[in-house]
C-alpha cells in the first residue's frame, strides 16, 4: 500500500503540474484540433472518393473510404500527416538550393520580412518620437498614420510593386516596403503611448534637475517605452511576414512562400499550399517567440520582477 502510494505520489504531481502549466492545456487543445481536422478531411474528401470508386467500379467498405480519403493526391482538405510528409520532403529531404525546397522559399520570404521589419521599426520609432515631441506633427501626421491602415493591403500591394518596378526596383525591396507599410503602424502607436507613459512625478523630477530634452528622452522616456515597444514588435514581426507573402502574390514571383501558395493553387496542389501555409505559421510563431525571448532578457536586465 505504502509502496503504491509512494509510486503514485510523484505521478499525480507530474499530472497536476502539467495541468497547471501551459504544456497541458496547449497539448489538449492541439489534440482536439487534430481530431476535428481528421474528421473534416474525411467528410470533405468523401464525395470525391465515392465518385472515383464508382467510376472505377470497385467495391468499397467504410474502412476503405476512410483510408482513401486520407491519402488522396489532390484532396480538398489534406490530412495533417499528408502535410507533414510533404513538409519533411520539401524541408529536410530536398537540398536547400533547389527550387523545390521550402527552406529556400522560406528564406526568400524571410529576408524581405526582416528587412521590412527593420525599416518599419526604425520608421515607426522616428514617427513616434516626432509625434510625442512636436505638437504640429501630432496633428498633421497622426491622421495619415491611421488612415494608411484603412486601405486594404491587397489593393495597394500590386500598385507598390508596379510603381517600384517602373523605377527599376524588383524582388526584395518592393516586398520589404509592403512589410514596412504594415508593420510601422503598431510600432508608432505603441511607442507614442510608451514615450508618454512616464508619470507626472517622474517628469517633474527631470524638470527639477534642469535636464534638457535629450536627457529627458534618453534617461526617462526611452526606458519607459521599452515594454510598449516589445509588445508592438511582436505584432509587427508577424504582420511583416504577412506583408511579404502578400507582396509575392500579385507579382508572379518566382520564389517565396507566397509564390509557392500561388503555384499550388494554379495546379490544384492542395498539399503544397497547406504545407506552405503551415511553414509560414511556424515561421511567424518562432519569430514572435524570439522577440519575446529578447524582451524577457532585456527587461530582466532592467530590473523587471521575475
Amino acid at each position, binding site marked *: 500500500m505504502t509502496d503504491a502510494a509512494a509510486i503514485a505520489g510523484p505521478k499525480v504531481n507530474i499530472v497536476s503540474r502539467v495541468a497547471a502549466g501551459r504544456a497541458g492545456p496547449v497539448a489538449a487543445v492541439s489534440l482536439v484540433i487534430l481530431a476535428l481536422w481528421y474528421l473534416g478531411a474525411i467528410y470533405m474528401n468523401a464525395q470525391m472518393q465515392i465518385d472515383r470508386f464508382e467510376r472505377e467500379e470497385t467495391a468499397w467498405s467504410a474502412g476503405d473510404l476512410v483510408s482513401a480519403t486520407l491519402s488522396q493526391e489532390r484532396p480538398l482538405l489534406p490530412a495533417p500527416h499528408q502535410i507533414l510528409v510533404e513538409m519533411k520532403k520539401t524541408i529536410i529531404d530536398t537540398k536547400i538550393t533547389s527550387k523545390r525546397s521550402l527552406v529556400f522559399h522560406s528564406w526568400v520570404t524571410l529576408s524581405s520580412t526582416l528587412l521590412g521589419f527593420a525599416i518599419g521599426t526604425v520608421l515607426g520609432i522616428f514617427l513616434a518620437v516626432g509625434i510625442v515631441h512636436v505638437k504640429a506633427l501630432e496633428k498633421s501626421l497622426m491622421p495619415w498614420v491611421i488612415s494608411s491602415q484603412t486601405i486594404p493591403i491587397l489593393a495597394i500591394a500590386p500598385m507598390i510593386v508596379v510603381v517600384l518596378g517602373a523605377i527599376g526596383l524588383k524582388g526584395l525591396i518592393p516586398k520589404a516596403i509592403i512589410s514596412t507599410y504594415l508593420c510601422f503602424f503598431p510600432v508608432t502607436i505603441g511607442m507614442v503611448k510608451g514615450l508618454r507613459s512616464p508619470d507626472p512625478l517622474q517628469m517633474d523630477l527631470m524638470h527639477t534637475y534642469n535636464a534638457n530634452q535629450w536627457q529627458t528622452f534618453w534617461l*526617462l522616456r526611452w526606458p519607459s517605452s521599452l515594454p510598449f515597444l516589445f509588445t508592438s514588435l511582436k505584432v509587427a514581426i508577424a504582420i511583416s511576414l504577412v506583408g511579404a507573402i502578400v507582396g509575392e502574390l500579385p507579382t508572379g514571383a518566382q520564389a517565396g512562400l507566397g509564390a509557392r501558395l500561388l503555384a499550388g493553387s494554379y495546379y490544384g496542389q492542395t498539399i503544397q499550399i497547406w504545407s506552405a501555409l503551415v511553414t509560414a505559421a511556424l515561421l511567424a510563431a518562432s519569430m514572435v517567440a524570439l522577440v519575446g525571448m529578447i524582451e524577457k532578457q532585456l527587461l530582466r536586465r532592467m*530590473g523587471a520582477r521575475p
Partner: protein
Amino acid sequence: MTASPAQSIEKPAQDAGQRRTVVEAKKLSLTFQTADSPVYALSEIDLQVEHGEFVSFIGPSGCGKTTLLRAIADLEQPTAGSIEINGVSAHQARLDRSYGYVFQAPALYPWRNIERNVTLPLEIMGMPREEREERARKYLELVDLAGFAKKFPWQLSGGMQQRASIARALCFDPEILLMDEPFGALDEIVRDHLNEQLLKLWDKTRKTVVFVTHSIPEAVFLSTKIVVMSPRPGRIIDVIETNFPRDRTLDIRETADFLEIAHRVREGLRAGHSYDD
C-alpha cells in the same frame, strides 16, 4: 571657468550662524484657470525662510501648500507677486539646481538600481562615473541604505524607497531640500522613525528644509517654523516659531511645550476651516 560642472557643485560651506533669507515670497498669488471657474490656489502669500531653518507648511487638502512648494521649485508659475530664492528668481534657482525635491511618492525609476537612481541627477550634471559612485556610497550610507545599492526599487519597502529618494535629492548637495508630504503614504511607526532620521540629517547637513505635511505632530516635531494654511483661497493664517533643541528626540512629544504648539496649530486649522463646512 575651467572648473568642471562636477566641481562647481561643491559650494563652500555656508556660514550657518548668519541669518540669511533663502526663500522670500511677496504678495504671491497663483490662480488655476479651469473650465468652469478659476481656482485661487494661493492668495497674497508673504513668506520668508531663513538659512538653516526647517519650515513646515500645514493645512487641509486644497489649501495650496503643495502649490506653494511647487512655486518655490519653479514647477508652477505664480500669476502675481514675486518669489526669490537666494535673491534670484525661482526659475534661475532651478537652473542653478539650488534645491533637491522629494515628492509624495519615491518616483524612483524602476529600471535603475538604487545606486543608479541616486546618481541620476549627477549623471545629468555630467559628473564622472567614479565620483558619482563615491557620492552614491556616501549618501546611501547617510540614509542607512548602504547594503542596498545594487537592489532594484521593487525589492525595497516603501520607507526604504523614500529614503533612497531623499539620498537622490541630497547627493548633488543642494542648499535647500523641498519635501512634499514625503512620508504621507507610510505607516505611523515607519513615519516616526524616518522623522527622527530626517532631523538628524538636517542637523548634520545644515540644509534649509521646506516640508509639506498634513500631520500636526509631524509638523510640530520637525519644524523650527510652522506655516498654517487654509483653503479657498489658499492663504497663510498663522506662522508659529518653535525652539526645540536641534537634537530633539520623539520624547519631546510628551512635553507641555509640544502640546501647546500642537494646540495652537489645531486652533489655526479649525479657524481657517470653520466657514467652509
